[in-house]
């Protein structure tokens, strides 16, 4: 049943990438526990606008956990403490009356702050552009059933393909590594017969781009998989390492 709580928020405010940021404290009363975390921020922003103050900038779009746009670091965890949720799927019923909630942007060298809680994740697109695809043009493809793929392989590829590219993995990693993100795409495509032809080239190109863009190395702490809202498995990183090594050995 719906009830309401009073909370205190400590929100990171930062004018732009070059300015120094700071925490600002806000008190909110009578927040319905049925509202989502982002709806709570909407309420705060409405209040700020009413007081003729600048609203807090944060990224969001679909609000159903699939677009990967929302990106808040809540009480020290990307997308909050709850497992398997994005920020937009986090509900206020997970908080208690009187809670103090700290909200920060993703903090990672490769994701510079644009304003407040909004960061630039363009680096992930650049990694994808380096090789996150099967090189096939529109048209001239064989009948879809001409390539049989076992259910197990299709399901495994699907699990890897579930990645929403939100950046929580790199934000959670003490090294700022994008290995989970990169490995999910490399795995998906390396598992499928259509993607095998280019597997070696893909793994090398994506890893090289990741290094170039300032992401750190993987030291197998597993924070990425623990915080991933889509439960992308660490085994993908193992597969990426295997694909990468094989590719390098062939060179």
């Amino acid at each position: 049943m719906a009830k309401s709580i009073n909370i205190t928020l400590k929100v990171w405010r930062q004018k732009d990438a070059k300015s120094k940021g700071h925490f600002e404290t806000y008190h909110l009363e009578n927040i319905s526990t049925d509202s989502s975390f982002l709806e709570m921020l909407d309420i705060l922003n409405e209040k700020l606008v009413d007081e003729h103050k600048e609203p807090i900038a944060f990224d969001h779009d679909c609000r159903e956990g699939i677009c990967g746009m929302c990106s808040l670091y809540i009480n020290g965890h990307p997308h909050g403490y709850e497992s398997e949720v994005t920020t937009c799927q986090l509900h206020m019923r997970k908080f208690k009356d009187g809670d103090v909630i700290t909200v920060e942007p993703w903090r990672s060298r490769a994701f510079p702050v644009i304003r407040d809680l909004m960061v630039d994740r363009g680096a992930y697109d650049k990694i994808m552009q380096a090789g996150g695809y099967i090189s096939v043009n529109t048209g001239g493809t064989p009948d879809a059933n001409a390539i049989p793929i076992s259910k197990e392989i299709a399901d495994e590829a699907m699990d890897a393909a579930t990645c929403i590219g939100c950046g929580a993995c790199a934000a959670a990693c003490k090294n700022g590594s994008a290995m989970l993100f990169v490995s999910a795409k490399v795995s998906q495509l390396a598992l499928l017969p259509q993607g095998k032809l280019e597997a070696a080239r893909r793994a090398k190109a994506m890893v090289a781009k990741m290094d170039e863009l300032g992401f750190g190395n993987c030291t197998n702490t597993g924070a990425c998989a623990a915080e991933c809202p889509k439960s992308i498995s660490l085994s993908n990183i193992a597969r990426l390492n295997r694909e990468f090594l094989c590719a390098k050995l062939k060179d």
Partner: protein
Amino acid sequence: MSTIDSKIPKGPLAEKWTNYKNTQKLVNPANKRRLDIIVIGTGLAGASAAATLGELGFNVLNFCMQDSPRRAHSIAAQGGINAAKNYQNDGDSIYRLFYDTIKGGDYRAREANVYRLAEVSNNIIDQCVAQGVPFAREYGGTLANRSFGGAQVSRTFYAKGQTGQQLLLGAYSALSRQIQKGSVKEYTRREVLDIVLIDGRARGVIVRNMTNGKIERYAAHAVVMATGGYGNAYFLSTNAMHSNGSVAIQAYRKGAYFANPCYVQIHPTCIPVHGDYQSKLTLMSESLRNDGRIWVPKKKEDAEAIRAGKLKPTQIKEEDRDYYLERRYPAFGNLVPRDVASRAAKERCDAGYGVAPSGLAVYLDFSEAINRLGKDAIKAKYGNLFQMYEKIADENPYETPMMIYPAIHYTMGGIWVDYELQTSIPGLFAIGECNFSDHGANRLGASALMQGLADGYFVLPYTIQNYLSDQIQVPRFSVDTPEFEEAERSVVEKENRILNIQGHRTVDSIHKDLGHIMWEYVGMGRTKESLETAIEKLKDLKKEFWSNVYVPGKVEDLNIELGKALRLADFIEIGELIAHDALNRNESCGGHFREEYQTPEGEALRQDEEYSYVSCWKYTGEGSAPELLKEPLDYEFTERKTRNYKN
């Protein structure tokens, strides 16, 4: 008086597209390099078009509002994509997919367009598999299918409950490859605020850079809009927060016809509204109706007890449940089309049988399917949807039925296009949800993904060449022309005008008012009176917006409220168009239900004699009523019938 030329090719239905392709003009590879194309949007239609045009050798400029092209709202489509593969050997064919789509659209779509859609549907599946889209498979390695509303065959391909995501990531990967090659230049966090016309042709766009508020100009030989639907005119919808109709409205103001705006789809299975702080509604995929059974209590006192929290749905005995879809529509049961299912839910709730504290919800129950197939089988099929429901509603749908209610989901109406997907402005094309072309008055489930990708991969890349072939002598445009100056000036003036109002209302508070008016008076059941009331109220709301909105900050800055205000101004205009169109259409068809026009059983009653046409609204200037142009819909190949999902 303008006339409408839909440019439908001559010949038998099944040969029209082939004939068109055989005789259309093409652009040779050396000339393609010299031609620039702007594509607005990176959803299924936009990304697939931009990628394909890039592959062909055109120089493409692609814009999106999000921080990455991968985040367009196509990503949220859950259930699946239709194709006439007939892999299940259950009697499917291109003709049957065509026929189901025409019938599902309540005979208000163009036959030639729909047939072409059904024809290319099979290529889409081949294309996506080649890209590595991990569709669901059978143990033998072949592709799996499921059923969707309005069809008696299994023709829906799916990737768990995340089909839109997987298809969009496929298109995004093709797009990424072209960006790497340099044939597509991607512009993210950009909002297109106007379309620039030179000598009557679309030649560029005025863009707001959302990170700094700076205005940018881009020129091209042709402009393609792939900007999605305008459902957020209702404030609460299943659309993403940034989904909007602004480019469509700018195109309309520049002379593109807005077609059938009143055809708005209300999806029957969404999580019900629960509070006034709510920002959006979440869809529960139609695929759930494969195994879920929809019901309300048979007895009013049971419904009242449930609403008061004194009774649980699981305590209602089988014989006291009213599976009203199965009762009313034995042949299609829970898989009737969306408009029919939505109205049936509203009918039960209005009659006092609704559940949830608000009384505005019905049950979607999986207990029988779980008993029959086991919990694991249900989890494998719908796991992520059940999880999503539990996160939002805080109830476990494996143990207690889901509560659902209809919500605004998709807009069949949109910018008018001819057979070539060109709008009434030469050089301006519209693809995907933002055009009106294929779904008539109601879209069938799993057909939005099909249409977006059909337009982007297989239709536009052909038809746009027919236009561009005589543009090869036209040199690249400068953005320093008077036309660009003027367009930029008017955009900046509008921004300043909004910022200078300095009133007392936040953008969202006015948007919520708009949503209430639209849902209350232009929603699931419309009457002449309700629509006239809406038009009056919208006039007042427009005045309220332009005199009392408050937007903080500066124009040349990252200014979220200003972005929202610009979109809201356009949503109010769209709301007016929807109401005008609905008032003009004195009949019920598909998603447009006029309560005056129904059968004794409460089914939609079309008036084919008078309304078998596409309503094309032409802008006639600020403050003056739009002009109605009619594109007649001739049914040459199918016989128009009253839709029957009973037997």
